């Protein structure tokens, strides 16, 4: 098992910041169950899936791994993977702080203009953990609804939190919506 120190070591060897999003991509390849932990099997299978067999080769692969985020399909998989990966063991939901951190990380690469408002809204109004449904539906929201919310439909079966977010944006004048 590679644990926290091991992961830290790995990052050093790869010459990347532990906060670098590429670590997430690598973890995804490895189907790692938990952040900062790799079982032997996960590690080996992961390297195989990336197509490398040494740290140096892995280091070379880093730019292309980073690029995988730009791919729509892969991004969706990585995004949804991230939820379970970032969770505490035995928990069903994601603590808010962690969720915000992950979102910022992910949407830094895939630009979403409302990310700051979203995080602010959560901190001011929600203050609770994030459910899996909310997590995955947010991606749908980001992908389908434009930043001015012109195509947002109240009857669209969006999670309650997202409905609240839209209300929050309207109240604070961030978007103009005709009711």
């Amino acid at each position, binding site marked *: 098992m590679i644990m926290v120190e091991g992961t830290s070591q790995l990052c050093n060897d790869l010459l990347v910041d532990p906060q670098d999003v590429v670590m997430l991509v690598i973890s995804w390849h490895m189907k790692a169950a938990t952040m900062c932990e790799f079982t032997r099997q996960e590690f080996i299978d992961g390297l195989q899936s990336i197509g490398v067999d040494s740290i140096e080769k892995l280091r070379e692969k880093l730019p292309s791994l980073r690029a995988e985020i730009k791919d729509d399909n892969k991004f969706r998989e990585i995004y949804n993977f991230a939820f379970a990966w970032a969770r505490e063991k035995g928990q069903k939901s994601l603590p808010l702080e962690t969720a915000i951190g992950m979102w910022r990380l992910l949407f830094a690469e895939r630009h979403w203009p409302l990310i700051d408002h979203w995080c602010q809204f959560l901190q001011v109004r929600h203050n609770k953990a994030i459910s899996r449904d909310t997590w995955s539906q947010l991606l749908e929201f980001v992908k389908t609804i434009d930043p001015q919310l012109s195509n947002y439909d109240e009857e*669209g*079966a969006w999670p*309650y939190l997202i409905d609240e977010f839209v209300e929050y944006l309207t109240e604070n004048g961030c978007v103009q919506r005709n009711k």
Partner: protein
Amino acid sequence: MCRSAYNMVLHKYGEKLYNGLESTMTWRLKEISKSIEAAQGGLFLEELNAKWMDHNKALQMIRDILMYMDRTYVPTSHRTPVHELGLNLWRDHIIHYPMIHGRLLDTLLDLIHRERMGEVINRGLMRSITKMLMDLGPAVYQDDFEKPFLEVSASFYSGESQEFIECCDCGNYLKKAERRLNEEMERVSHYLDAGSEAKITSVVEKEMIANHMHRLVHMENSGLVNMLIDDKYEDLGRMYTLFRRVPDGLSTIRDMMTSYLRETGKHLVTDPERLKDPVEFVQCLLNEKDKHDKIINVAFGNDKTFQNALNSSFEFFINLNNRSPEFISLYVDDKLRKGLKGATEEDVEGILDKVMMLFRYLQEKDVFEKYYKQHLAKRLLSGKTVSDDAERSMIVKLKTECGYQFTSKLEGMFTDMKTSQDTMQDFYAKKSEELGDGPTLDVHILTTGSWPTQPSPPCSLPPEILAVCEKFRGYYLGTHSGRRLTWQTNMGTADIKATFGKSQKHELNVSTYQMCVLMLFNTSDGLSYKDIEQATEIPSTDLKRCLQSLACVKGKNVLRKEPMSKDISEDDTFYFNDKFTSKLVKVKIGTVVAAKESEPEKQETRQRVEEDRKPQIEAAIVRIMKSRRVLDHNSIVSEVTKQLQARFLPNPVIIKKRIESLIEREFLERDKADRKLYRYLA
């Protein structure tokens, strides 16, 4: 003459005969027309009529004489039969004769006008003339009389209605309209063709009623609203009958009534003065319902559409005030507690049925259930119910309305009371030796699920009481192993014998808390607040209220407080009030009466109701998804609402939250392709 005519036709002189007839008649008629024309004034019509009578007689004779020609020559040569020919010639040469035509019409219309203005006219003559026109052919009647008659009538009534509406109030206007309508119908029956009735009444209806509907209904000081307020059954009945004749007439009345009811109702339920007394408030609602029921019954012929409008208005405004369920329950509580004392069974049923009517209007029936339970519990435990039968009757009505589930717990409460009685009898039968001279205990054993949830705060019972309570506990658990008993000291009462002054004996009826406090004074004359608090362990808010009722209420001050201030403070000291007096031997100090909740209590109850709704909503969602397997969001919301609306109106936002919770707990999932669809996970 017949024979000559017969012969002529036989010998093929039919044509000559016919032509001769025609020309002779024509010539004769032209002469007649001159004489009619010459008639002066009133005689014109008489002359016309007289000549018509003659003509008819003549025609009959001619027809008889020329019968053979009518039967043989006329059909084969396609000529007009004799009688008809005679009529047509009359029409062409008399009626349509320019000097007569206009004058005839003018005369008829003038006479009708005069009759409308109050004069008496020769109806017989009129009858004869109009019959003549009908005989000449419906087209003649219609073109030469009826059409102009209708036009003139329309403008007459248009003018008259305008005049009336400026100077009459609504009730009087309607009387006049009704009278005019009746007049016209009578006119038709006396001297116009029956076919004219529908047409002339429709003219009057349009001019006098339809054109002024809104103005009438809205008339200040005398319109519909005033009639409703003043119970003007006759005027309202008249309005209903008249307006029913015109399109949208009844809906005009109905809409006005509805908006008036909603306005008044809204004021009633939001008026803070009214809301101070819940029982009065509900009585007002019942009175309003009664009043309008009567109006619909007496004046509107029990019209179902009006009944529906009344119901929907009540439903609208009753639910504007979210305390309505609580207040209706308090009303029933008042009636069952004392209001129905001495009432006959009929009266009881009547009042309860009326209350059920109001109950049906409630959207939040589950809130009512919660309050009803609370109030019922207090009634049962304090023994303060006027009639067991009345209580049962109410339960039956609720069950009929809402189903077994609604009332099963309420019925459980009654069962508990009965069972407790039996238990107590058995307890005393078996244990009387052991108990000896101790205080007499009367225990009500309440099944937790059926009674309103109460916290059971701590309370130190006096030793004498504790002893007998423990004996009971031992006895009960002996026969009911596996159960757990918790004393609800905040719900009990006690009767204590007390001696004041020289030897004033009184029996005090108090709450359990009050008893605990008073018993302390058996061993001390004076105690501080802190002493009492420590000894009894009663929570401070309850203790303060308890001490207040024992020391600060005139006529019930069995304790004396120092200082003599109005409120209880933690620095106060209490003394047994030796100087207490009362005219009554039995003094009631305990308070277990149901009352309007305070604001914080109300919030708490509402919160509990909201909590109770969540599992109900979830159960409904699961039921629906289990049977439908896959369903879109909006359909779930409407199905859930349909299933639950007999109890309350679920909030779509809450439904959404419950769906998300069910997704989290893996009862449901979103469809992979369509995110608006949910799937049931077996």
